[in-house]
């Protein structure tokens, strides 16, 4: 019967026509093969590890965590009831809870950065394709990974160690000594392949200057972190930056914080931001939104409602020498004025307010607001486009010079090589202060100087720990029973890796 052939005929039609094909067609993304065969894409792809840096100083970031844990920032509930969540007060009072959101976001910033670098290193290598500057790109990834690990070790000490992207096993936990050696070796092995100069071409990249600064920071903290004195190496690393001749102290303090300040040669390792290109919630430069309120918004022609949250911590505000122009260059306080220059009635900001504000809430006039990074009033901002064109300096030449002086002091050496340096004294003179004499340049003076110079730039916590001032009382913060020099490993991250052990203060 002919009918019995029909099923097989049907089957033949079906199979013969290739109708079992289930391959996926990809249109709007790039497959692994396409990426690795395209030289242009491949070189652009390494940028993802730099893009991660853009998350550093958003609202709930590692920067926020370090800022709030140090003595320079306060975020009590404001007069409209916003910022009522206890999370800012908890960090301020060194009540570090493993489930705290910022502790998680801070950790994630560092370890995602590590993972990004791992991925770029693997993909770039696996591609097997040569492109211009490949060796340098690989070296940048190694040192950038060292930076992310440096930040992780700074915050958490004991971190998961994973440097091979293809190895998906759960990483082992390594202590500071191991990580210190790893970071040091990664930098020294790769530093020669990095860009040696500081030009518009290398702006924002991991250059030799940035790598030496990172190394200097590593060595400077060695005694605190691993109990080994490496101040001489810190001095050497700082000298490398100084002697490169690539960096200068800008004429004005504000030059470091202007909108679009690519030309500022004080920047050593900036995170470039852009109104146009870094405009989403998690990568825009929106520090002004955190601190300003509606009255300030009018003054600075900002067409959106700022969040009126972050203010200067009163004790920190009082560190400034009355003559220090950086105070007025950094903070808005006292009588406030509208855009036309007229005084706003009743709006006199009190920078030194009482310390019960985490409970009672902060009046609109309580606390100095930040305007260190110049506000962009060129009309490019709109109500739903909040990111500004300022760049955030992770490393700045002024920081290098202050570290240089510190490395000399800590070795017991004469500080004349620092005080005799015109650029070093310019840090003081451009702030309207008299130059440091050798005798005045003590560790305490240096800590205050670093505070005023680097306010809200993210290094205060590290400084307070290194200078032995971490577990002292300050505004709204008592002396704590334990030191809490390390943050707890975030609950969510601890739970996915049984190899991780919680830090000692939190057991």
């Amino acid at each position, binding site marked *: 019967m002919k009918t019995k052939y029909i099923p097989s005929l049907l089957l033949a039609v079906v199979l013969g026509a290739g109708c079992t094909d289930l391959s996926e067609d990809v249109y709007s993304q790039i497959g692994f093969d396409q990426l690795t065969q395209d030289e242009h894409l491949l070189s652009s792809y390494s940028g993802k590890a730099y893009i991660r840096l853009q998350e550093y100083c958003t609202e709930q970031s590692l920067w926020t965590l370090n800022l709030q844990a140090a003595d320079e920032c306060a975020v009590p509930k404001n007069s409209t009831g916003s910022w009522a969540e206890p999370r800012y007060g908890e960090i301020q009072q060194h009540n570090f809870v493993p489930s705290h959101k910022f502790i998680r976001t801070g950790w994630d910033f560092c370890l995602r950065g*590590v993972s990004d670098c791992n991925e770029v290193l693997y993909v770039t290598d696996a591609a097997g394709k040569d492109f211009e500057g490949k060796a340098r790109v690989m070296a940048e990834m190694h040192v950038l990974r060292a930076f992310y690990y440096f930040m992780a070790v700074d915050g958490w000490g004991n971190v998961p160690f994973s440097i091979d992207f293809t190895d998906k096993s759960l990483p082992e936990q390594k202590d500071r000594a191991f990580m210190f050696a790893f970071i040091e070796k990664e930098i020294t092995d790769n530093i020669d392949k990095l860009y040696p100069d500081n030009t518009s071409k290398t702006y924002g990249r991991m250059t030799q200057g940035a790598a030496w600064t990172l190394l200097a920071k590593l060595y400077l903290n060695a005694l605190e972190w691993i109990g080994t004195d490496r101040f001489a190496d810190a001095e050497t690393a700082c000298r490398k930056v100084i002697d490169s001749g690539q960096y200068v102290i800008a004429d004005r303090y504000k030059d470091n914080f202007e909108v679009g300040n690519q030309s500022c040669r004080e920047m050593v390792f900036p995170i470039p931001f852009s*109104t*146009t290109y870094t405009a989403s919630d998690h990568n825009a430069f929106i520090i002004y939104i955190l601190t300003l309120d509606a009255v300030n918004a009018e003054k600075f022609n900002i*067409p959106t*409602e700022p969040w009126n949250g972050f203010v200067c911590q009163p004790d920190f505000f009082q560190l400034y020498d009355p003559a220090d122009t950086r105070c007025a260059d950094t903070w808005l306080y006292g009588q406030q004025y509208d855009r036309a220059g007229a005084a706003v009635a009743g709006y006199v900001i009190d920078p030194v307010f009482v310390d019960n504000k985490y409970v009672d809430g902060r009046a609109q006039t309580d606390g100095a607001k930040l305007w260190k990074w110049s506000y962009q009033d060129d009309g490019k901002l709109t109500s739903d*486009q909040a990111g500004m064109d300022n760049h955030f300096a992770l490393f700045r030449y002024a920081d290098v010079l202050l570290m240089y002086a510190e490395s000399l002091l800590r070795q017991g050496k004469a500080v004349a090589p620092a005080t005799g340096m015109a650029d070093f004294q310019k840090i003081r003179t451009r702030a309207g202060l008299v130059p440091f004499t050798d005798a005045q340049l003590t560790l305490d003076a240096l800590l205050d100087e670093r505070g005023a110079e680097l306010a809200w730039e993210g290094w205060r916590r590290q400084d307070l720990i290194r200078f032995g001032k971490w577990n002292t009382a300050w505004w709204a913060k008592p002396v704590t029973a334990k030191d809490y020099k390390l943050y707890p490993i975030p609950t969510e991250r601890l739970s996915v890796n049984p190899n991780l052990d919680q830090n000692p203060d939190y057991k």
Partner: protein
Amino acid sequence: MNLVNLKWSIPRRFLATALMSVLMLSLSAQQGQEVTGLVKDAASGQPVAGVSIQIKGTTSGAITDGRGAFAVRVAAGNTLTVSCIGYLTQEIAVGGQTHIVISLSESAVNMEAVVKIGYGTSTKKEITGAITTIREEDLNRGTFTNAAGLLQGKVAGLNIVNPRGGDPNAQYEMVLRGTNSLTSGSNPLVIVDGVAGVDMRNVNFQDVESFDVLKDGSAAAIYGTRGTNGVIIITTKRARSGVTQVEYDGQLNLQAVTRRATSMTAGEFEYAVRHYSPGNVDKLYGFDTDWFDLITRTPVSHKHTLTISGGSELFSHRTMLNIEQNQGIQKKNDSDKYMFRTNIRQKALKGWLDLDYNAFMNKRKYTPSNDGAFRQAFLRNPTEPVYGAGDERYGGYYPNYAMDYYNPVAMIDERDALREADNIGLSARATLNILPIKGLKWDNMLSFGQESYEGRTYYTKYYPSMLGSGGVASIEHSKDSDYQWESTLNYAGAIGLHRLQALLGYTWEKAFSDGSGMTNTQFDSDVWGTDNIGAGAGWKQGDPTAGINSGKSSHTYIGFFGRAMYNYDERYLASVSVRRDGSSRFGQDQKWGWFPAVSVGWRISREQFMREVRWVDELKLRAGYGVTGNQNFDNYMSLVLFQSKNYWYSDGQWYQGYTPLSNSNPKLRWERKSEWNAGVDFALLKNRLSGSIDYYRRDAKDLLYQYPVSVPPYLVETMWANVATIRNSGVEVALTGIPVQGKEFRWSSTLTFARNANKLVKFANDEFRSANAYPSGSWLPTPMGAYCQRITEGESLGSFYAPVWEGVGADGKDILRGAVAGSVAESKWERAGSAYPDFTLGWSNALTYKKWDLNATMRASIGGKVFNSYRGNYENINFIGQKNILASWLDTPSFTGNAVYSSKYIEDATYFKIDNLQLGYTFAFVPEAMVKKLRLSFSAQNFLTLTGYKGVDPEVALAGLAPGIEEMSYYPRTAVFTFGVNMTF
């Protein structure tokens, strides 16, 4: 239902005609007088075609023609047996009459009724799976945004919710037998006239002839990876031969708001501020503005449908034209539809070939509602004026702006949004009847469907949340197209008492989706809207909200399937099916899966020993097991793909960055659900009472969820993995009865009951765990600031957890059990019930009295919890001032504490609704008149809700992982009153 049921889909009309000629031949040999007659439907008075008129005790008889007429030759004293599917069989003694008029009454159950089972048909008596068939006459009446509304409350176990109330663009949410997945969609697979995956909005709801809902695994397994959520087979009205029939249907409806979130009036507001919040007297602006009133209207909608059908046995068609214009209660919120659908049936090659063509072309033009405006109207200070002097940038609106505080009138007036969706669908089915082998046919169907969408939105420079943007214009286009080919070989035959139906098939589907969009800002003038998008300066100036984009994706499904259904004497029934399904969406080695099913049935009523049990007409036991899958996931989830995302600065300029957005998992595979179903079908007391009871247990395994992983080595902190298991088990009961069956008055009633218990059996394995799993959708923003639900092994999904509220203390604050300094540690929160109801009820009634008919559907949901978002956020005096609060706070002014999340706001969701009522009157005319029929009707929908729930509507979305949470951006509930006219020519 008017046709003789002849099996296996051989065109019935054709065979009926053939059979009739045979009968006529045999009649001519008979003795006796010729009797002519007319058969009419007792309820409608319409003629009934295809009725069998048999002379009792003989094989002689006749079948009624298209006008319900018949002629037989009988001897006086003979009895005629008059039978037809869907009607009670009658016996009529022939005296001396030569003309008899017979009125047929519908029966409550019809065991011969055709049931669509997927790639074929069967009959109610023969099916062994849990399949519910609802025909046109039993559907809800009134007006609906799409056909899903017709089924609400009609099918036990199929929960249909319209979470969007009176929005004319609302879509229904459907959940069958509980939530069976953690992440994928819950909507059943919809098949319209054989084409899978059709958007229900493309069906004019008045065009639906029947729904067949394939509920259990054994029934749905033939649809393999798309069967888990059940299958709804929609059959639209088909072409019929006969004289040309023209039908017009018109509807006019009005809506009125029944339930909404009500904030204080200006008077209440001022009273509350002065008495309870005197610090805010500066926020009393002295005006009296009813913001809700200002953004709403009384909507009037109308709908017109013209249907033309007719033709010969060899070529017939049915063509439908529909125009409707619908208004929502929010100003500008409109929905216009234009639909065209035709079905053409043709026979060729001397009975070898049957052709069936379908085409539709629809246009939907609509303006979506601006839900945020309802919330802002709620929040807006009622003492504030709409307009007021301010600087130019506020455009004349009262210049009071703050974060999340926008003028709702400006939100409506300063936005123009127009959407246009054009759908076309073409399908052709060719059935080759291999005549030498009776019952064998080869069926091929090709279909093409496409939706072209255009969305245009313009926000003027005065749109509240976009001040400073200088106007924002956006235009979006998308095109979704879908190609299907289905080829099946069907055999049906009988040897003696053995009957076999066998199926072998192949199906292939490929779908493409692509879209593009553009947005620009900073326009010199608002005059162009979106019509001159290049004129904006924003894009050129690098405004990141301005830009262009496009994207495209595709996927392929392939299935091979087979089924054999066997029965002996229509007494012992068995069915076996298997499907081999493949999808491009899964990992390289995981693309294919097997989906088997088996089911058996025993019709006890056919046994000898039941013959004497007169009161039992039908009794059947059924049991089945089937495996289905779920592939409602995104494309490309198993691949490593680099997306362009963000920019980085290098060499003095910004470059595009590329990164994978997720961890790829090449091991991704099907979610598999296996289901047991046992049921009983019965009909008692001469079919006056019939029903079904089903028990099921479904275990959905390998469910996908995003689990946390370590970074490094992974790139992002979560990864999709197949880990979890969910069990749903339950009971469904459907009872249909005819309590009253009189000559002029008839009442038929259907009651459905469904109870489902959901349990998350497994959520972790050695590799993937989640310490604290909160469904992301259960996050309640400030001031609640909590996840209200948890995902916990061993418990139902949708489980609320909260501090236990014990009342309001003398200090005006909430008393929470175990509170320390006003707050309760999260570990001490208690389970506060589940969002899922304990059981649901549906009660449908059809009453006819002479030419009047009344249809009423009531629904009830018992148990279940709902989080009252408006109370949680706004029944609090501390928020009064700039913003308004719930008027109901005035009922409990002793509460002055802060808004703290607790069980206080988790309320009982029990409700009883009368949401569908229609009264109709039918005028019958003599057959010679131009107008054959005229029916007038009045419907009322959603007009009564009895509930203790204090929020907008206790009937909230129950699909997904965070069910039972009232939306803050909601659409008010409305009652709909519809006047309808239906005329047949």
